[in-house]
């Protein structure tokens, strides 16, 4: 009995001694995200990353993604105060990432030089959209526009032509048939309202926003609900929808269409490792994977565009990649063409609360009056 114990103790000791060797494993066996990016993009990339890790290091990584809207995720990270329960924040506005970095809540990226250099500094004119952080706390992962969605069958029944630009949503025949999410709840909606305000100036811009309010039949609780209700045919058109969310509904077999007006805001879906993350190596490797051709290809299958000019959305005829190209109007890469951007993020971030408050007062609180007025 006693001998067995000694052997056991010796074995335990050996295991302990082997400890440092284990700790030098290339990555940890777990990886957790907090993300506003929908499951349909996070699940396939995480699953393929786990496969990649198994192939490359023979390590089984347990992954999970905590779904949370951009503001919620941001708030949650602030609440964690540097003791995060997840490793990575993925998606949302780059300005929020800058704010987190200022609060020392992000860890600096340690990506190989060629990987990070493949991501251009910015895209778009006259206002460049930053695609990575000059200070190195975050990088963009994919490109995707916030556009509008519609259901062709419902529009045909209403006798309304298919919309091409934001202004087409103000068509009086669409009254009560539009779904949108308030900018207080949705970052895509907030950004798109800023596009309108910066395009038209404050007075005209707010008049436009009130007018859209009068045409709105449903304010959804989250931006993801907007394409859902349009896909189902519950509403005819939806405002400020990320392309890949609408594409998921298309993949699910719904007859939904997407269009990105010329002024549509394009997000680079930034990603960062949280300071104090429990699995920093796995986190960094995931980002590296996401920027690799393999990761980019998996993402492209879901209706987003590559973050680097190195790749273009391309697949066999009938593949989901080709479906995505058709769905987003034939484009294969944002680097193939001139990108117009009139949205100035600094301006938007400075008056973030102000715009929300004004929307609440002048649209949400008086929605019944707006419906009568327009």
């Amino acid at each position, binding site marked *: 009995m006693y001998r067995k114990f000694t052997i056991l103790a010796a074995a335990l000791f050996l295991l302990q001694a082997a400890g440092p060797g284990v700790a030098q494993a290339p990555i940890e066996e777990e990886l957790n995200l907090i993300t506003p990016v929908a499951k349909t993009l996070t699940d396939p990339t995480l699953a393929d990353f786990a496969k990649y890790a198994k192939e490359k290091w023979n390590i089984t990584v347990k992954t999970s993604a*905590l779904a949370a809207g951009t*503001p919620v995720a941001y708030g949650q990270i602030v609440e964690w105060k540097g003791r995060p329960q997840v490793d990575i924040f993925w998606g949302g506005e780059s300005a929020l990432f800058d704010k987190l970095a200022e609060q020392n809540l992000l860890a600096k990226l340690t990506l190989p030089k060629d990987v990070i250099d493949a991501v251009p500094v910015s895209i778009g004119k006259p206002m460049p959209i930053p695609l990575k952080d000059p200070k190195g706390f975050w990088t963009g992962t994919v490109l995707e526009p916030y556009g509008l969605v519609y259901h062709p069958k419902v529009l045909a029944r209403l006798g309304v032509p298919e919309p091409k630009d934001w202004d087409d949503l103000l068509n009086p025949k669409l009254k009560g048939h539009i779904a949108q999410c308030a900018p207080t709840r949705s970052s895509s909606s907030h950004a798109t309202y800023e596009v309108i305000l910066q395009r038209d100036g404050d007075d005209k811009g707010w008049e436009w926003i009130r007018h859209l309010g009068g045409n709105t039949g449903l304010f959804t609780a989250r931006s993801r609900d907007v394409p859902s209700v349009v896909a189902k045919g519950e509403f005819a058109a939806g405002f400020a929808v990320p392309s890949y969310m609408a594409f998921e509904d298309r993949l*699910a*077999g719904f007859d939904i269409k997407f269009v990105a007006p010329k002024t549509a805001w394009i997000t680079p879906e930034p990603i960062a490792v949280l300071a104090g993350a429990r699995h920093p190596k796995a986190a960094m490797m995931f980002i590296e994977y996401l920027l690799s051709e393999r990761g980019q290809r998996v993402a492209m299958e879901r209706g987003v565009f590559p973050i680097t000019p190195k790749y273009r959305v391309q697949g066999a005829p009938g593949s989901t990649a080709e479906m995505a190209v058709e769905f987003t109007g034939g484009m294969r890469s944002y680097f193939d063409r001139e990108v117009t951007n009139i949205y100035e993020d600094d301006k938007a971030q400075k008056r973030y609360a102000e715009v*929300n408050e004004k929307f609440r007062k002048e649209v949400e*609180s008086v929605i019944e009056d707006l419906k009568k007025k327009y």
Partner: protein
Amino acid sequence: MNRLRLSLTPAAFGYGLIWTFLIVFVLFPLTRIFYDAFTNEAGGFTLANFLEFFTDSFYLRSFWKSMVLGVVTVFTTSVIGIAVAFLIVRYDFPYRNLFSYLTMLPMILPPLVGVLGFVFILGRAGTLNVLLMDWFGLEHPVNFMYGMQGVLLVETVHLFPLMTMSILDALAKVDPSLEEAAQGVGAKGFRRFRDITLPLTTPGYVSGALLVFIWTFADFLTPLVLGVQDLLAPQAYLNIVQFVDRRIFRMGIVISALLVILAIVFVIAARQYVAIKDYSSLAYSKVERIQLGPVKRWLAVGFLGLLMLICFIPQVGVLLASVGRGWALTPFPEHYTLEFFRAVSIETPKFIINSLLFCGLALLMCLVIGVPMAWVMGRTRAPGRDTMDALTTLILAIPGTALGIAYVRAFNFPLPFIDIPLTGMWIILPLVLVVRRLPYTVRASLSSLQLVHQSMEEAAANVGATRLRTFWDITVPLIWKGIFVGALFSFITSLQEASATIFLTLGGWEMIPFGIFTFYIAGSQSQAAALGVILIVLCALCLYAVNRVAGTRVGGLFG
């Protein structure tokens, strides 16, 4: 009469443990949200938050609309609930037993699933509108769902069984001799109902009404799906899930605190009323059922059949959505598939596993804590038992939203030694479930305990049985049915719980309702529907067991 003496006996120690549990997991988190609600960012005491609430026209409108919705829902559920209860207790007609089971079923509509099911059938592109447009050339769809009318419909269908069950319990306890006596002195029909039956069933009714009111008041998912955001619960939820604007965030907490305050006020008011009017005898009486005439009996069946038809709209809608692919703008899905069921069960079994695991744990804890609590209330004069009694009623009334938020605020500090906050450990989910659902176990155990005459226990004690032995050999066999029903009820309602757990769930801990919620917000309504169907089937089986064991007498749970 036995008395529990407060010396340091094991019993007293156990009693202390129960109190510790209640203080740590009920009172402490609640004080935390009150602290948040009455302080400013700097931590100083202030009433400014409430002042802001009561001077903001949007919040005020939310407040009044919530009140009106609650009152109207109590009215609609009363009309239906009372009619059903009377039919089932007092009259005999074909399929009576079947209906007594079926009328309980709408209650197990999981959050979100109910409203989604309704939208699939009655939405603007739902089956009914599509048929109206395709067959009758209707140009614009009829708006059955989006707005207050839709919320009222969903809440009424979901909650009338609570009313039925509360009244059933009260009615079954009314001694028929009282009514016969009234008849004997010439009081008939309405007069007899007004003077005898009504007052006797009032306590049951009041507790049912209170529950319906608070449930409606606290439900945020239904209004959100239907685009109604100017109600208190959706405002609390929406304000809290956005953390960026700290002021709006604090207003969310203020609204949750307000929900708790209102719940407390309603409970106190209801208890005052019930305490004064509790004349009902404790025993269930044998009720002679009246045979209905040939026309009336089929009228009864017709009424209940029609009611069930409306009640099962959501189930039908959810079932169709769970097997239909790309279902839009046709009366029924055109492509059928089982892929969604496979996706939510075989490919990701965690939802079902977590649900059974956490709810099973919660069930065990409910029994360990709840049965002794009932015993203390029913059989001892231990100090503090009245407070405990009041506390169980209060727990029932606390909106889940508020409790979830209270937990997030209160337990987010690293615990000593292990250095992880409670909010970072999965055990917090079973814990919050226990707190939420404990009252059902306590109430059901207590009400069956009250039906057991103490003389039996005393007889056992006289022949030398120890207290524990008496409890085990005499009391338990007599009350196990009540405990079983209460515990199973705690289990069913835990399975369906979403309002508190949504705020506390982290990756890997997802239970079925959270899965429904995440699939829904990820736009995968079919997967959400498939999980919903699984949950409904699970709960229906449990409810069937309840029905077999207890018949229709599962009231008394909600006092």
